[in-house]
């Protein structure tokens, strides 16, 4: 079981790095969706595939929301505003990947100095959770298009969720569902906002919005 979980964690790291290095929005949306689905399977896996209605329902909600609803919403937003790729991010793709690797090393170091009160299932979960949060943040601050920033926000949520999963027995599912609802509303609102920004200004470059203040 531990090996499967480790493999999932490494998959998470690789998808994060891929997100940092790719410019096509469609591919990025799909990668985030796959990330969500794989993470949705983790609660079932932790219970050794032992069926329990509470966990199964939780997984189902997670997979439907992250694997189907979010990608649909984002793909629709992407089509409506006719942007297919991120152009000229603040930090280039190669340097983003290099920065991501550096972040990974920092996260590994950080989590080794961070004793948790409870025992985690796999040694990798905490550093990978940190790394996922960090790379989500990096996506938000280094990209110009609003849609990539929404993706970064989703990746961050995936990181927080990974952290929560390691403490699953100490965290009520209700809290997790509450967070999920927040994220759902946020993505929904952001989709509408992006549409309006685009209709008003003909683009979704957020860095140009700061000119409005002047």
């Amino acid at each position, binding site marked *: 079981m531990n*090996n499967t979980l480790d*493999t999932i964690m*490494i998959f998470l790291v*690789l998808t994060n790095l891929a997100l940092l290095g790719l410019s096509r929005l469609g591919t990025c949306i799909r990668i985030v969706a796959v990330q969500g689905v794989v993470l949705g399977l983790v609660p079932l896996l932790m219970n050794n595939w032992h069926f329990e209605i509470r966990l199964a329902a939780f997984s189902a909600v997670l997979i439907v929301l992250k694997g189907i609803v979010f990608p649909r919403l984002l793909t629709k937003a992407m089509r409506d505003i006719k942007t297919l790729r991120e152009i000229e991010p603040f930090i280039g*793709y*190669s340097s983003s*990947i*290099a920065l991501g*690797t550096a972040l*990974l090393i920092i996260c590994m170091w950080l989590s080794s100095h961070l004793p948790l009160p409870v025992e985690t299932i796999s040694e990798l979960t905490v550093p990978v959770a940190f790394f996922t949060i960090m790379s989500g943040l990096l996506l938000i601050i280094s990209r110009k298009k609003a849609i990539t920033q929404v993706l970064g926000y989703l990746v961050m949520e995936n990181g927080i969720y990974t952290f929560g999963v390691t403490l699953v027995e100490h965290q009520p599912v209700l809290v997790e569902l509450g967070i999920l609802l927040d994220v759902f509303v946020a993505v929904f609102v952001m989709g509408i906002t992006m549409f309006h920004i685009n209709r008003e200004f003909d683009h979704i470059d957020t860095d140009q919005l700061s000119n409005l203040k002047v």
Partner: protein
Amino acid sequence: MIFLKILNTVLALITAPLLLGIINRTKAFFAGRNGQPLLQPYYDIWKLLNKGSVYSIATSRIFRIGPVVGFSVVLIAAAIVPFGGLPVLLDFQGDLILFAYLFGLSRFFTVLMAMDTASSFEGMGASREVTFSALTEPALLIGLAAIAKYTGYVSLAQIFSSINFDAWLNAAPAFILIGFAFLIVFLSENSRIPVDDPNTHLELTMIHEVMILDHSGPDLAIILYSAAMKMWLLGAILTGIVIPVHSDNVFLNVSAALLFMLLLAVLTGIIESSMARLRLLHVPQLLIGAATLSVLALILILR
């Protein structure tokens, strides 16, 4: 024992150009052609060896010694890289660093030869070669470091004799990552698609081919042969990681490794037939990706 040691090197010397033949046949199959004979690379090398060389008056001594340096480098490398569990002729502590930098030396001379002709196209090729190899090197070295750390040895022969299927069970994710990183290194170092297209003769895009445009006759034959040897040696490293067969039967070990080499050549052919060459701007991204995979593997093993 000494027979097996010599076999390890001789096998590389004899079979290396065959890999190119297999790749070409695979590509011909995908293109719906019959393709050149499997042994065409040997015929080419033989034909070139029987020709005379033409030297431009603008070139110096470096242009002439370059191919010889390149060939001696692969000969030394063939003596330290074990293939399919065979013993090696030369083996000392830290020879994995020698392995990585032997290719660095041969690259240095290839680049010097290209600059020596003072052709602007060759200069472009040289500049690209240097840029890309600077990014490939970390992937190779960090990957080797990861395996060295896992096995606890620093000589190629010892490393590859101590990797076995148990290692795969214990650290499967790390080994898969290293495998992919080395596959990218293999394609990039041998100037294959997606980094470089070995068939193109368009100076604007090619890297390795453009640097040897001015070579002819035996010099070109030696360069082609060294390139084939380099492909074999990097393939042998990949084989040692992916198929660590160490049974008591030497014949079984070698044939398993040979089978994997065949598959590797076919895989290269498939990649070349199904992918386009990456835009030059995107190549560094791929290579940094490979380096990242190696770093990740090292982190997993150090943990």
